[in-house]
């Protein structure tokens, strides 16, 4: 399919302006872009886990959601939407509904990698015809920047402060996309905001229109938690991709496809140095942290290249 950013942004937004999300936050950009991938004639039911997104977009009596929307709790966006999707099948079967609906769940990394992990795993395994979109900002931002299993190695958060004894988060980031691939879902992909948004738009369209369960992991930076100036958002996502910290790939029926290979893979410093959460790694004597992260990124990248060459 031919892609035009101009045509894409001319489509009517299904996520209204005037919500309360921060300037420079990746989350509403991810949501608006994913919803734009819906064909205009299709109806949708959207679900959000409890999150910044939920409390900022659906504060009674206002809602930013133009499609039917349900928020239930923190841990269960996938289970909740699987109930809606099952109701859809039940109503179709009983002749109570003619219209065509799509089902999209959104959760932050806390609601997806951590507390909602079981619910997500269950829904993907059961094979509901739905898309789960994680907007991954790598910590519990809604409660004030606490570490999650998605928080990267050495990041400074309020529960892994870069202290005099312990230098930030001691563990590496969980590789959730590959765990989702292990559920044998027909479509899983990793994306973020790059250039003309073709990558995320096309992946969202595939995720929505592939029958069965699909998983989309969108790196969605948080200016408060990552500590960058709001206007630098797109530079950060670009650096994440160019350093291979956040590779763009998709897995279709178990087959890995690399969507972008940097012409010259940049060193991780280029990504880390833009963000206050990694500032302590640049202090004299802490060079080993950057070296270690570089090794981890290299190993993950090599593994991904191998998977994509199979």
């Amino acid at each position, binding site marked *: 399919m031919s892609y035009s950013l101009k045509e894409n942004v001319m489509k009517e937004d299904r996520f209204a302006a005037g919500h309360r999300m921060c300037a420079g936050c990746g989350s509403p950009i991810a949501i608006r872009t994913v919803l734009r991938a819906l064909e205009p004639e299709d*109806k949708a*039911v959207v*679900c959000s886990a409890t999150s910044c997104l*939920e*409390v900022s977009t*659906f*504060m*009674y*009596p206002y*809602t930013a*959601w*133009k*499609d*039917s*929307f*349900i*928020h*239930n*709790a923190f*841990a*269960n966006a996938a*289970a*909740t*939407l*699987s*109930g*809606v*999707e*099952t*109701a*859809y*099948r*039940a*109503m179709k*079967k*009983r002749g*109570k*509904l*003619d*219209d065509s*609906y799509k089902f999209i769940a959104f959760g932050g990394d806390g609601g997806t990698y951590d507390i909602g992990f*079981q*619910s997500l*795993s*269950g*829904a993907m*395994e*059961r094979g509901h015809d739905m898309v789960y979109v994680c907007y991954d900002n790598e910590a519990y931002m809604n409660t004030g920047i606490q570490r999650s299993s998605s928080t990267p190695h050495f990041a400074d958060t309020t529960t892994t402060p870069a202290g005099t004894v312990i230098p930030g988060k001691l563990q590496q980031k969980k590789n959730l996309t590959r765990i989702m691939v292990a559920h044998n879902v027909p479509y899983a992909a990793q994306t973020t905001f790059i250039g003309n948004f073709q990558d995320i738009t096309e992946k969202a369209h595939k995720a929505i229109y592939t029958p069965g369960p699909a998983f989309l992991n969108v790196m969605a930076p948080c200016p408060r938690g990552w500590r960058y100036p709001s206007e630098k958002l797109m530079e950060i996502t670009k650096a994440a991709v160019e350093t291979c910290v956040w590779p763009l790939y998709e897995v279709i029926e178990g087959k890995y496809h690399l969507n972008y290979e940097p012409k010259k893979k940049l060193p991780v410093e280029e990504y880390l140095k833009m963000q206050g959460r990694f500032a302590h790694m640049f202090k004299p004597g802490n060079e080993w942290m950057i070296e270690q992260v570089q090794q981890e990124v290299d190993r993950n990248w090599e593994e991904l290249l191998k998977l994509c060459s199979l």
Partner: protein
Amino acid sequence: MGIRERLSGNEAVAYAMKQINPDVMGAYPITPSTEIPQYFSAYVDNGEVDTEFIAVESEHSAMSTCIGAEAAGCRAISATSSCGLIYMAEMLYVAASDRLPITLAVSCRALSGPININNDHSDAMAVRDAGWIMLFAETNQEAYDNYLQAMRIGEAVGLPIMVCQDGFITSHAIENIELVETDKVKAFVGEYKPQHYLLDPSERIAVGAYATPVYYMESKRLQAQAMLDAKDVIRSVANEFAQMTGREYGLIEKYKMDDAELAILLMGSSAGTAKEAVDQLRGQGKKVGLVKIRSFRPFPTEDIAQALKGVKAFAAMDKDDSFNGHCGPIFAETAAALLAQGVSGPKAISYIYGLGGRDVRVESIQHVFADLEHIAATGDVGETYRYLDVRE
């Protein structure tokens, strides 16, 4: 005329579900309610119902799928027990606050720890403030009858409803039962017609808002009103049910209470044992009676005050301890009800009994009546917080 059968309480409830043929069931196995989704899955797989069954990965997800399905416009059901009920507790509150009339069958079982699979009411009592209507059954017949009435009640007031029975004691014991013909069940229960739902093509709605202090309390006040309204609905649905079956139900059942001077108040299967104890003591000329609670939520304040106002002494018996250092939940609610209704005559004690499946015998109940007789004769209440049939 109904159909005579012999069924366990779990099978009776599963059979009621089959007759109703709801749209969606989300359930997870846990002893002793496991048989309900098991029987129901067989109905699904053999084409006896066309319900969509979701075999979820936890009770939290079971209730989450029910919330999603009911909000989408469907009749959604589940079944659980014990730790499973507690695991879905977070979602029970949301179901009530979203005003979704989900129906949940509970085969009541003790909570861990120590881990124990047998009956008491600590699971249901732990979620008594979640905003659900809660009916309790004495027998398999009552579990079945309550289930047939449940959706009418819940859907009329827009609240979810629990149909509780005693794990193993009625859930697994096989009793004679009279079933209602399926066509009559379908006509009685009727179709679910929600006012607003997610999959209504004519409108788009949003469910589960963030409510700031400006709105939160109004939403709770509306929930409270629905629970108040449920009292009359439970009575009117029971009247209609009695016309169909001849079996009568209220918020409470009074057994030989007309001239009773000593009374026991309890709920669930022990009512059968208590009735036998009452009969034996009545045979000895003692003026004893029983009040059985059918509806714990809404709590039948007026009915209980009316039933107990003339007694000299009563024992409120709880298959659960609140661990508040003075009484179980039925005692606490009854004492509050009497005070609110201006009834101050009766002496009263709280008895904790039957925890973790501790057998409740006719002699156990007679022991309680002997205590009450002593209290009535001497005017000395003594210790008001007592444990029955326990080694100390």
